[in-house]
């Protein structure tokens, strides 16, 4: 960290004052430098590279992300040894800069719908790549617009007149040396976005562009010189990468929300406004109950997501050992769980960041608060790597499947094992809802049970509604669509349960008593706030009574007052450096107003005392009127 922060080469003007093109240029400059410094310092461990990178770019995207994060890893996992010999070292040395071109203008998460074609020509032993329609133009890949000279392109493979589905091809797109697009390639930047200014997300159109047969990544599927197609062995393996990337997003949700909380809570401790008691000085806005109610549940959420992210990473690490030995049994559940948790955490964090910004009033809206930037950088994660609603439905598919297994007498394991209890109850002629859980609202373990009961009820309700639709209608797909709102709710309840469970489980691992005490308060707040926001579910299922709900609401407010004392310390523990936080409002030293003024003076509109538009427009108008 200090290595980067103290390096004068990585300093530059505040990004907020730069145009898109300047931001891109800065990012490229820093990336180039970074690669050289990494080599200079001999940093090669992926974890260390990750940290180095995140400090160089202060957690922001950069044009080489896709090269480092997708192009190189894909070569490693999907290229044959010969292909690795040809491409890997040049790519490692950045003679080849690559990107990963999957998403098209017309299709994103639904991969089978991609339209780009790669047709094998046995006469020349080449693939002919085409973008047959406007919708098939590759759209969004990072680093594609201006930076890359190669791309891994996903296309529908046609050989011997048959479509064999999606496959990956290494496609050179720019001339080495001049960086001009190759004949048959149309490539460019897709224009301004909500955020990601430093990233050249690009488009790519191919017209009868030919590449040698050896450029198809052939570790698994193969096309032989005569055009014969050889199928891959298993398709579950691709799950692994997806689980890994989605687990990163869960971690990113925690981090982004933590940053926003840090800014909002520190600022709320510095800002004084209005009066609570007549005659007394204006109080810190953090002392208002409404402000605490906005921020502290988010603080608790940030901690909860942090533990969930760590859990997924550990689990993934544990079972990737099994995967290498060919044991894929745990993968489906983890895959289903991470899909849902990716959606749940990114949705929550997305809304939470905005809450934090609005809790900072007008100044939150200024870019100097840093929160607008956190938001626009984070919010696409609700869409990329699997659109959230689609992710929730994937989790639901797994839940319904598990439910069906339980109904047919099998037992299920893992996080869904609570569904086993449903069958036990069915022996008694009683709805799951009627089951009495004695909930103790000050005991996290007991609250986990309440969330479990809620998840069980909503999974059962969704599964039953699905069955009812199936009984009424012919098509499975139609029934699924008509139940999808229920299914998403079931998935949400399941994810919520998992998070409360993991947070609670974490508490017992903490040895320091003071830390355990404060995290227990946060865990309780997280669980109780979740109940108070979803009282309908708990009431309707009979898990909690009206009186208990009133107690829950009351307890939430008591906890706010308790957490208030430690609020600043709790965000300090996230340990974000001011430079990394990038916020005037969230400064560690709290000297907010002086620094806002200093910051504003640097704004581009202030470069001249009298703006040129005065001479161009105002003055002539005043003369005329």
């Amino acid at each position, binding site marked *: 960290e200090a290595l980067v922060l103290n390096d004068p080469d990585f300093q530059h003007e505040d990004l907020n*004052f730069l145009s898109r*093109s300047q931001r891109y*240029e800065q990012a490229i400059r820093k990336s180039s430098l970074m690669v050289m410094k990494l080599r*200079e310092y001999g940093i090669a461990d992926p974890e260390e590279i990750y940290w180095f990178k995140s400090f160089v770019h202060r957690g922001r995207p950069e044009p080489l992300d896709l090269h480092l994060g997708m192009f190189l890893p894909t070569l490693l996992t999907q290229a044959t040894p010969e292909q690795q010999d040809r491409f890997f070292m040049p790519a490692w*040395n*950045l003679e080849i*800069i690559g990107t990963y071109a999957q998403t098209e203008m*017309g299709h*994103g*998460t639904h991969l089978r719908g991609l339209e780009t074609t790669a047709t094998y020509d046995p006469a020349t032993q080449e693939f002919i790549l085409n973008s047959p329609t*406007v*919708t098939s133009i590759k759209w969004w890949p990072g680093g594609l*617009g*201006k930076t890359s000279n190669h791309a891994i392109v996903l296309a529908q493979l046609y050989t011997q007149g048959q479509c064999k589905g999606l496959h990956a091809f290494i496609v050179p797109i720019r001339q080495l040396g001049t*960086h001009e697009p190759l004949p048959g390639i149309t490539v*460019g930047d*897709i*224009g301004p*976005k*909500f955020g990601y200014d430093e990233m*050249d997300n690009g488009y790519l159109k191919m017209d009868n562009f030919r590449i040698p047969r050896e450029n198809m990544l052939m570790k698994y599927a193969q096309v032989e010189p005569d055009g014969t197609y050889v199928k891959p062995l298993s398709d579950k393996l691709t799950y692994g990468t997806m689980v890994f990337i989605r687990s990163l997003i869960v971690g990113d949700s925690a981090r982004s929300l933590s940053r926003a909380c840090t800014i909002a809570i520190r600022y709320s401790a510095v*800002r004084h406004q*209005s009066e*609570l*008691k007549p005659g007394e000085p*204006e109080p810190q806005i953090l*002392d*208002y*109950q409404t402000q605490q109610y906005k921020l502290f549940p988010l603080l608790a959420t940030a901690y909860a997501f942090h533990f969930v992210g760590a859990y997924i990473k550990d689990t993934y690490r544990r079972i990737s050992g099994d995967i290498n030995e060919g044991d894929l049994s745990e993968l489906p559940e983890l895959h289903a769980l991470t899909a849902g948790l990716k959606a749940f955490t990114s949705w929550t964090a997305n809304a939470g960041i*905005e809450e934090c*910004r*609005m809790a900072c*009033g007008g100044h939150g*809206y200024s*870019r*100097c608060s840093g929160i*607008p930037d956190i938001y626009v950088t984070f919010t696409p994660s609700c*869409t990329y790597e699997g659109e*959230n*609603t689609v992710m929730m439905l994937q989790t639901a598919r797994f839940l319904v499947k598990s439910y069906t297994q339980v109904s047919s007498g099998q037992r299920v394991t893992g996080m869904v094992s609570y569904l086993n209890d449903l069958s036990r109850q069915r022996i008694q002629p009683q709805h799951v809802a009627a089951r009495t859980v004695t909930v103790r609202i000050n005991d996290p373990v007991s609250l986990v049970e309440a969330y479990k009961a809620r998840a069980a009820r909503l999974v059962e309700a969704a599964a039953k509604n699905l069955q009812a639709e199936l009984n009424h209608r012919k098509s499975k797909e*139609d029934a699924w*669509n*008509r139940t*999808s*709102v*229920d299914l*998403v709710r079931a998935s949400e309840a399941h994810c919520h349960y998992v998070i409360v469970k993991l947070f609670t489980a974490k508490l017992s691992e903490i040895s320091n008593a003071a830390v355990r005490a404060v995290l227990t308060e946060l865990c309780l707040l997280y669980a109780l706030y979740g109940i*108070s926001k*979803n009282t309908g579910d708990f009431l*309707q299922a009979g898990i909690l009574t*009206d009186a208990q709900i009133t107690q829950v609401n009351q307890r939430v407010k008591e906890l706010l007052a308790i957490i208030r004392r430690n609020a600043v310390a709790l965000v300090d523990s996230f340990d974000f450096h001011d430079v990394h936080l990038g916020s005037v409002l969230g400064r560690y030293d709290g000297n907010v107003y*002086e620094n*806002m003024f200093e910051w*504003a003076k640097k*704004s*581009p509109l202030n470069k001249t005392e009298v*703006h040129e538009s*005065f001479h161009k*427009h*105002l003055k002539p108008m005043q003369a005329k009127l």
Partner: protein
Amino acid sequence: VNPDLANERQTASFSVEKLTALLDGGAEQTRLRRAVVEAIERDPVFSRENQYFQSQNERYEAAVRKAVHLQKKMHEMGWSQDGPESKYIYRAVAGDIAFLLHRIFMRSISVLGSDEQIAKWIPPASQYRLIGSYAQTELGHGTYLQGLETTAVFDVTTQEFILNTPKVSAMKWWPGDMGRSATHTVVFAQLYIHGKCYGIHPFIVQIRSLQDHSLCPGIIAGDIGPKMNFEHIDNGYLMLQNVRVPRENMLNKFCEVQPDGTYVRRGSQKINYFTMTSVRISLISGEAVTPLMKACTIAIRYSAVRRQSKLKPGEQEAKILDYQTQQEKLLPQLAAAYAFHFIDDYLQEVFDRGYGEIQRKNFDTLPELHALSSGFKATVTQYCTSGVEICLRACGGHGYSLLSGLPSLYTKIIASCIYEGENTILLLQTARFLVKSFMAASTGQSVPPSVTYLAAAKPRKCPAKNKLDFLSPDIYTEAYQHMAVRLISSTAAKLQDLIQSGVKKHDAWNRCTVQLAQAAKAHCHYITVKNFAETVEKLESKAGIQKIMKHLCDLFALHGIFSNAGVFLHDGYISGAQMDMVTASYLDLLAIVRKDAVPLVDAFDFTDKSLNSALGCYDGQVYQRLYEWARKSPTNKQISPAYEKYLKPLLHNTLSKL
């Protein structure tokens, strides 16, 4: 036109043109609006096509150019400042124009100034011989006005006020048009005479030279830097160092400082209070509901064009609008846009009536008007903001491109949750009124019309027997009413309890604020539902309009119950079984409204230029347009400078040396 959209329009169950006329308040209004929009959009100076590619400096310059050109245009067209065209002009330029604060400057002089002051300042201001701003908010204080720290000390010897910014947090911060454009501004400052503070008063202060536009002595002013949006506006800061203005520059309709320093109050400030209140109402339509309507138009048209994945094997890929989850995101927002359009009509009417009363010196309605304006400003801006965001996220990756138009709609509308009163604080103001009214009603006193329901006797259980019962406005309106009464009365009771148990009043209030805000929202939600139902009832049944509006009203109401189930279930007013009926009815409605979704957004009648979106155009040629537009991006006009400077050395030789 994309056939997918054409099909949607052919099956409309109602006349789009008739619905448009209803929204505009008559076919004649529609005609006038279209004429104004047409005149402005035809003029290339007002084009917004390149807006997404421009820097802050370029946006600002364009806004000034447009504002200047608009004066010419209005003169040419014979439009006057307060003619019937004016509200459509703002819609047509989509707010992307400078000098909006100049108007506030003029209005504040008209409202707060004496006749002499009006005669002195208004004529030059309307001819733009000076440009005004309105400097209230400071670095350290916003909604809480009494906390402002700028000072104005009266100097009897020179008959001047000396204005000062005593510390950094007292610097004026945020006022529009002040960073670069304004020559004058109305500064709000604490008035001191002979060492005594008389509170906040308005002063006209010149800040820039009328000759060369340089800053006046003692003035430090500039732009506050980049924001989430409003890049075309030069929101500014202002620091005053012993700036002297003549005694006559204090706006003195309501109070005056006489030459010897005697402070005199005159007339009632209440009319002024009314003006502030009505500003909150006036922003609901243009700043909150219109953006939501635009976002719905973009997202729903795009969802009818975008095909993704298959619903049934062997068939074509389905429109994403056919997915229940997509309907569940978008259609409630569409219903809300209509609900809020009608509530805006209602509020305008209430305020017009209130204004009449006030002219007759009857100020009895003021507390109610204040509560309504605060509560609805907060609930509508909040709801519309989250609605726009839902639309943004419902457009997948392409929604994230600025060319979709959605990010800029979003970043602009979110500011409305803060300006003209921070929403949480406004809700608490409404809550104060509700608690008071509830106390009055429970002791049998008369209360204003919007809260008489607090006194009425009600059933304790929802009488619905099956899911169709929940399509009855009586049933769901009563449910909302019951919920609002319960939240208000229980919070009032808790407040009472705390106070009786010896807790200090303000402390008790702070401890109840979370519930108080919730109660205020419930009150506004109830009135919105009730008003929607009553509006539908009054519509003529011709041309299918009443029928489709009834569906939207049902959808709005049931969506609210579905997504706030807990508060309806809490005391058993709605039972668990009934809640399942609500859900079933609600989901059925999605499929019904789905059929008319595209015609329902067509009826908003936005031109392609005003949407400024590659995804939302009328003809649905989404992909073609996105591609053509992206190619015009400045990033594609030149070979990137970064290539020569950094990439080339990287790609070629540098690394081999390592």
